């Protein structure tokens, strides 16, 4: 069966510091990978998605970047964190399903607090 891991679970960082959040998926190959952010009491905002190694698409201009160095690894980074980067970051994966009906499966999330 497939599993998705995220770490760390929680993180407190000062403004201006760098960030690296990691997501890995097991039990599948060549998945689509996604990074979302969720503000308190709000829905999820898609930040980045990737259909393959080295292929990254950004949905919203951010102080963030993403990379996919391996098939089942997705990394979210920042060179200098802003207060507005605080939130709940979720990684998700899906199998490619031509014709629609693709389902995303989410990781446990990382709670980031920028002070």
């Amino acid at each position: 069966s497939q599993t998705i891991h995220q770490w760390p679970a929680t993180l407190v960082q000062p403004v201006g510091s760098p960030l690296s959040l990691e997501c890995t998926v097991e039990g599948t190959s060549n998945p689509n990978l996604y990074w979302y952010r969720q503000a308190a009491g709000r829905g999820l905002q898609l930040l980045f998605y990737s259909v393959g190694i080295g292929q990254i698409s950004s949905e919203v201009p951010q102080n963030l970047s993403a990379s996919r160095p391996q098939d089942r690894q997705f990394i979210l980074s920042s060179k200098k964190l802003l207060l507005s980067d605080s939130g709940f970051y979720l990684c998700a994966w899906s199998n490619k399903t031509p014709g629609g009906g693709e389902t995303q499966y989410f990781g446990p999330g990382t709670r980031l607090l920028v002070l």
Partner: protein
Amino acid sequence: LAKTTQPISMDSYEGQEVNITCSHNNIATNDYITWYQQFPSQGPRFIIQGYKTKVTNEVASLFIPADRKSSTLSLPRVSLSDTAVYYCLVGGDFNKFYFGSGTKLNVKP
């Protein structure tokens, strides 16, 4: 990108059936309808997905009328543990789902 409209919140009591309706007037031909459940500080969990008519699994049913402009998630005999936020999403091939604010379901004893 088809957007969705759901009630902000709903209250129910244990043992009742709960129906949450979602409007998606701009749904495209190849879009599927997917529902997720999210507990605080956890990632959303897939509940059910459908394209048309009715879909049922071990936890829920999904009713989709012929015009597909709305859908209804039905949770039979809810318990306190079903208290969560429920999201209705509409997406197609590439799954760039739009997550709205969802429906906060509060189940009371």
